[in-house]
């Protein structure tokens, strides 16, 4: 009896001790990586019960604002911070790519069941309103086998500000100077034509309902909902369908020219087998954090996420980082000043 009591007392003491020692680190930002971040934070907490990481998926813009105001310890964004935004922060902020995402074209054409092929300039012209029919010679030339009807193209885009839009217009702007000058790159843009759907579900809902519609959604969303999507020509001239492998290949291809701050767009990346509409998503950390203890914990977490953590990518549909990028990030993590 006495023994049991002692045991219980010891356990509760221990429990009390861990509760006391537990540190909560707060972060906020992009919604796109939220599923894997939540998984990581939960798994990491199992390994290190003293570290509790709290993440609010309020959007990339919100994440950048919160870290700039230092209301959270780390931020997360689907687009890199601009020079102007970095200047507004009280100290230097470092970017760390965590996983990769991709954006795929989806469409609904009566009588066409095969996967269509697209090129950047053709997609740009469709989104500029210059190609208005599905049997336009430019599309027919890419898809000689498909029976393309003379249906009007209905362009669907995201209505909410989104990293998905950012990646899509970043790619179109690289391939079409006209798109670059008329529309440009941001999480929301001034679309020349089309209708806006809210979220991936809004866009795919509109596309599946409207005959002749074309839209773009996250690769993960298309995979999870088994929506078929087209292939896109990459910088090497191949037509590639987005997959976890072809997206990781895009990051590996871009690693050769990786800038030291990792603020890089990997759309239209060079190399064979690369899916061209791919992107990193970044975690944002202060180089010289106010709370050194949390800085140390967060660096340890990042080291785990970039190595062991990457194995959770596959089950959630994210593309893992290529090993050469991980190596570069490990070196960069050493810059963070922690106790």
């Amino acid at each position: 009896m006495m023994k049991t009591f002692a045991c219980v007392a010891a356990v509760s003491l221990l429990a009390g001790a861990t509760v006391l020692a537990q540190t909560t680190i707060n972060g906020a930002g992009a919604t796109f990586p939220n599923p894997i971040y939540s998984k990581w934070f939960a798994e990491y907490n199992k390994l290190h019960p003293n570290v509790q990481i709290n993440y609010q998926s309020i959007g990339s813009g919100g994440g950048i604002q919160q870290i700039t105001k230092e209301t959270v310890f780390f931020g997360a964004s689907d687009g890199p911070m601009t020079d102007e935004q970095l200047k507004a922060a009280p100290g230097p902020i470092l970017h760390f790519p965590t996983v990769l995402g991709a954006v795929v074209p989806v469409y609904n054409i009566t009588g066409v069941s095969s996967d269509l092929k697209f090129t950047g300039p053709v997609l740009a012209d469709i989104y500029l309103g210059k190609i208005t029919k599905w049997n336009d010679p430019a599309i027919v030339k890419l898809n000689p086998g498909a029976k393309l009807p003379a249906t009007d193209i209905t362009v669907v885009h995201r209505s909410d500000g989104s990293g998905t839009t950012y990646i899509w217009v970043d790619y179109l702007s690289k391939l079409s100077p006209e798109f670059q000058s008329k529309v440009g790159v941001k999480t929301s843009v001034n679309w020349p034509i089309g209708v806006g759907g809210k979220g991936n579900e809004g866009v795919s809902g509109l596309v599946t309902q409207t005959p002749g519609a074309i839209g773009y959604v996250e690769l993960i969303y298309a995979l999870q909902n088994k929506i078929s999507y087209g292939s896109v020509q990459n910088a090497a001239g191949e037509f590639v369908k987005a997959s976890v492998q072809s997206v990781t290949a895009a990051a590996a291809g871009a690693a050769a020219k990786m800038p030291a701050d990792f603020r890089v767009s990997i759309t239209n990346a060079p190399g064979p087998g690369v899916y061209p509409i791919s992107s990193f998503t970044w975690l944002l950390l202060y180089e010289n954090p106010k709370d050194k203890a949390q800085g140390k914990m967060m660096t340890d977490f990042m080291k785990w996420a970039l190595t062991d953590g990457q194995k959770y990518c596959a089950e959630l549909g994210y593309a893992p980082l290529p090993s050469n990028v991980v190596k570069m990030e490990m070196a960069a993590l050493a810059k963070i000043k922690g106790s």
Partner: protein
Amino acid sequence: MIRKQDLGFRLGTGAFALVLILIVVAIGFELTRQSMLSIQKFGLAFWRTDTWDPVAEEFGALPFIWGTLYSSVLALALATPVALGIAVFISELCPDWLKQPLVFLTELLAAIPSIVYGLWGIFVMVPAVRVLETSLPPTLRQLPVFSGPPLGVGMLSAALILAIMVIPFTSSVAREVLKAVPGAQREGAYALGATRFEAIRAALFYARTGIIGAIMLGFGRALGETMAVTMVIGNNPKVSLSLFAPQYTMAAVIANEFTEAADQLYLNALIEIGLVLFIITLVVNGLSRLLIWSMARSGSRSRAAAAAAPAEVTAA
């Protein structure tokens, strides 16, 4: 001499009323303060510019103002006759056993979250609207109100879903107002040999200020509705008369773009949209008050005339 207890009660409730005024003032102040960058840069042009370009940082609210007012007015035009019909039926004509179920069902409609309306709209109503739009005869399609491709999403869908959402509000308040009409009004009408229709018309006339209030409540609801509208309106900031055209509203653009807006001017412009919506709501409410007030005044005059009329009859 006011008793102590009375004084305390008066001060207490007065303080609550004062808090309400302070909240409204504080909202207006804060919206102005947070949109200062945009106000300084665009000035009054913000109200009449139709470009919304976050990349070039050129912002104008006109397409959103237009979309909000157009969709709300259309919704009101669609909803008011139906809502008043429901109210009249329930309060004047409905058999007793049906009354409670009908009241319950209209109030249930008001309790459905707007996201549910939105999802229903996008999956059920929009395809139906598209069929309606494609089946429109080509001669009618020449008219500017029906121009553009039949997408299903657009102004018409937004107005329809708003109308459905507004109906329970307007009809519930109108029903309560009709219930408050003294029985003597109807009895008097019957006594003068009025038909049932004429008696109801008299009751409606008696209750008109309250009914205008009910309609305005619906209008306010339509102006501010966000989620359901953004899911079916097509979210395209272009000013257009066409019912088929995808358009945009003020509440929708704030909900859509606020989370990802990271630049100061962009954020300020979005908050200024909120300020514009706030001002428009205030003006609309003010105008409806004015309308009710003027009607009540002319009403008291006509009531006096009506009171005088029977006297003349007896005199004759």
